[in-house]
């Protein structure tokens, strides 16, 4: 009995540590993205730890203005929901809770913070926030179609819906990225990732110059701090999802063979891979203008989804029943 409790406590500690690590990486990524954008624009840019400073400052603000308890739900749901989604992802082949859920669960867990956030934005009563949420939901509808098509193709190909199993199937460097059909799939999913990360040309929901940062317009102080945490962690979760699907989760050494060294190397590779995936998105962000929402919908449903349908047909013809 005592051993069991110790085990559970150990597990909880590890999970808490991983979530903290996730948030830390998210904040670091925010700084890196700003630094890289600055370098692309021939500027010096802020220090890479700017994300930490911003979040800390926001939580340190003296007055915090709320618009009632529904408004407060946004901060609670967004932080806890995104942390939960992170727990269900295999990170560098290390499975936290990912054997207790699967890809569908992750897709729907990602909706918890988004809906919570939308709830808060709606409760703020600012018309800009409502328009921003509408755009966010529409762009979600837009990018999810090609994304789920590629995901379904992968699930059928690997005959599992569990992300942990998909990562395990890609062990020994047999990454889906190197299979020609899923190389195309990775490109399709990367387009969807651009929308998921809300980078240009799909930063329609935020659009600071049109609708004053959309859903975040009434948030400030600790509320905005919580939302920043959500957005920063979101980049980690979404890039990790991509890396898990196509790049084998960053697993290069098998744990059974190399022990703790494998964990170390895998985590390093995972970090580099999500950084690369993220930086590609940031670089695209820096050279493109913004779509209108119906243009984004048409882009995803016409071109991106068309390629995804090709992948589906390929798998449809190739898979034995």
């Amino acid at each position, binding site marked *: 009995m005592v051993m069991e409790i110790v085990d559970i406590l150990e597990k909880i500690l590890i999970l808490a540590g991983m979530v903290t690590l996730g948030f830390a990486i998210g904040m670091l990524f925010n700084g890196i993205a700003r630094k890289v954008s600055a370098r692309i624009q021939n500027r010096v840019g802020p220090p890479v730890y700017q994300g930490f400073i911003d979040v800390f400052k926001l939580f340190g603000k003296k007055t915090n203005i709320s618009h009632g308890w*529904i408004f407060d739900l946004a901060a609670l749901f967004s932080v806890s*929901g995104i942390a939960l989604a992170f727990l269900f992802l295999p990170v560098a082949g290390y499975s936290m809770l990912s054997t207790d859920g699967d890809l569908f669960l992750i897709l729907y867990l990602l909706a918890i913070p988004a809906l919570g956030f939308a709830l808060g934005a709606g409760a703020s009563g600012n018309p800009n926030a409502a328009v921003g949420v509408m755009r966010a939901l529409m762009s979600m509808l837009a990018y999810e179609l090609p994304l789920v098509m590629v995901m379904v193709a992968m699930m059928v190909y690997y005959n599992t819906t569990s992300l942990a199993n998909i990562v395990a199937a890609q062990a020994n460097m047999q990454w889906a990225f190197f299979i020609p059909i899923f190389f195309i799939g990775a490109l399709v999913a990367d387009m969807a990732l651009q929308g998921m990360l809300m980078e240009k040309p799909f930063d329609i929901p935020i659009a600071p110059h049109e609708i004053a940062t959309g859903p975040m317009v009434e948030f400030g102080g600790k509320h905005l701090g919580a939302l920043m945490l959500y957005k920063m962690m979101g980049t980690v979760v979404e890039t990790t999802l991509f890396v898990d699907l196509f790049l084998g989760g960053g697993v290069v050494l098998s744990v059974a063979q190399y022990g703790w060294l494998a964990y170390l190397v895998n985590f390093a590779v995972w970090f580099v891979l999500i950084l690369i995936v993220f930086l590609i998105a940031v670089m695209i962000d820096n050279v493109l203008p913004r779509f209108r929402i119906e243009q984004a919908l048409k882009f995803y449903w016409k071109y991106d989804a068309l390629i995804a349908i090709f992948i589906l047909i390929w798998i449809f013809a190739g898979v034995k029943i």
Partner: protein
Amino acid sequence: MLTEVLVSLLAGVFLVLALNKYPRVAGVVAFIISLLPFMAVLAWAGTMGITVPSYLKFFTLETSLTYNLGPGVIHLAITPLGWFFLMLLASVFPLTVMFANSFVKRNAGGFYAAMLLTMFGSFGLLLSQDILSFFIFWEIMSWSIFALVLRGHDRRAIVSYLAFGSLSAMLILFGFMMLYYKTNTFLFADMHLTATPLTLAALSLLVAGFAVKGALMPMHAWAPHAYSRSEEPFVAFLSGGLSKLGFFGIILFMYGVVGMSVISSWGTFRGVPWFGYALAVIGAFTAFAGTVLAVMQDDLRKLLAYSSIGQLGYIAIGIGIGTPLAMTGALFQALNHTFFKAVLFLAAGAVFYRTGKWKISELGGLGYKMPFTFLAALFAIFALAAIPITSGFAAKWLLYEAAIQKKFLFVTPIMLIAGVGAFLYAFKILYGVFLGEPRYDVKEAPLSQLIPMWLLVLPLVIFLVIPGWFVDITAPILRGYGMQPIQHTLFSINTGLATYNTLAVIFGMLGGLLVAFILYKWKKQEVVPHIDNYLAGEPPELYEHIGMHASSKYFEPFDEVFGPIFKKGAERGWEIVLSAAEILGTGARKIYTGIVGDYSIYVLLFFIILVGWWLLW
């Protein structure tokens, strides 16, 4: 005792009719009588392998009963499938009657009488074991629904329900006639059908007939009108409970009467029978189109009606795929839909009761005024959008898993994208009705409306925590059709493709909420009224004419993209059928000239043909 239950249900109809002058008394009487089916469910629970504490068993009921009515014999018996659907209907029914107590003002006795008669029909229908009694009870149920639709005083709703109700009855009757012609028996148990074209035709007709009640496309055209123009307590029961009877019929005849082996012997496609595959594709199309149409609606009831159509499509997908996983998913979805859609319709009713408005663009800001209604609706919306903090997720998840298991490469993305579409209209309800600019200074809904809503939320929580129990409940149904129940423990389900452990999700979410709460409560905050956002301190009188609530034409870009494709698509199709029927009808009308000489020629021609037939044969 079963006879007494049936008779008292029927007697209740006349009792509440007699009490028409005292609506409150009629309401209480109707509520007491409406508890009878639920007591029956509890009494039968033991035979389904569910232990019920003795203080919840009010009487014992025989499991089967036969009435000999001279020309026909009525066979009633409780089956696992019938019990499951009876449970759904009987749990929603008393609560909607309770809600009606404060909601229905006009001719309340008639309302309760029709409601009780509907329940009487459904009760008999779910127990009937032969096609004769099935049809009789089906018609009782159908016509009492018509009586309730009539109360809406909307011509379009009445005419479309009448047309589709009759169409459904005709299709079912023809199906039954074919079955009887083939087997020469009324009893389901004695029908040993073989894989012949006639069976296929009969089954297709039956499924098409039941699809009307289940609002599957293209047989859904009546539903948006009837759902949106009737009284809310009845619509909650219609959408939550009665629409499931269509799926009860489909499951009963597809898997119970005809059987999986016969369906499979008509040919399979990628490991799934053609028949089921077609049903699944229709279901997926319904799920998607219903969702898209729901996003475009401005009328709260119409939005909920289309959302109902979309959600029912998922059940058809599950029935079509027909694996144990899919069947469990379909039944789970039926259960979830029963409860969350009833809550949503009742919440819409409560909002109407307080504000007198149905249009989403005219509502707004009720979340702070009616917090309990809002929370119940929020929870139902979470279940509708399949957010994993309600039981709504488990059902959709089972269906997705079943589709992936059978390698449905094109249906699965449609299901998933329909699920995303559900977020869109879910937020439209949330924002348009409950969030944003406070426009009405109203009180919370009365207790007699809040209690039903919150009781209906309860199952969504229970089956979130223990989905394994649901699999246990449905296990007898699956075993009856020769399927093995899926692998599960109380808190987790294993499909062979993946595992879903609710404890991990719940404790993860609770832990996350705790941490977020601590992080959040660290700093104090002050609450600022909404008017401060809109006007930034300007005097409010200056801005009275400006609407600050951005909810009219909320998804305008969406309408621009999907509107031309989807709006009125199905209805236009039916209008073509209608005009064709009109042309045929006017053509046939010309035979009746009104001249006696013509009629005598017809009679003569008829006799010549008859005699000629007789001579030639």
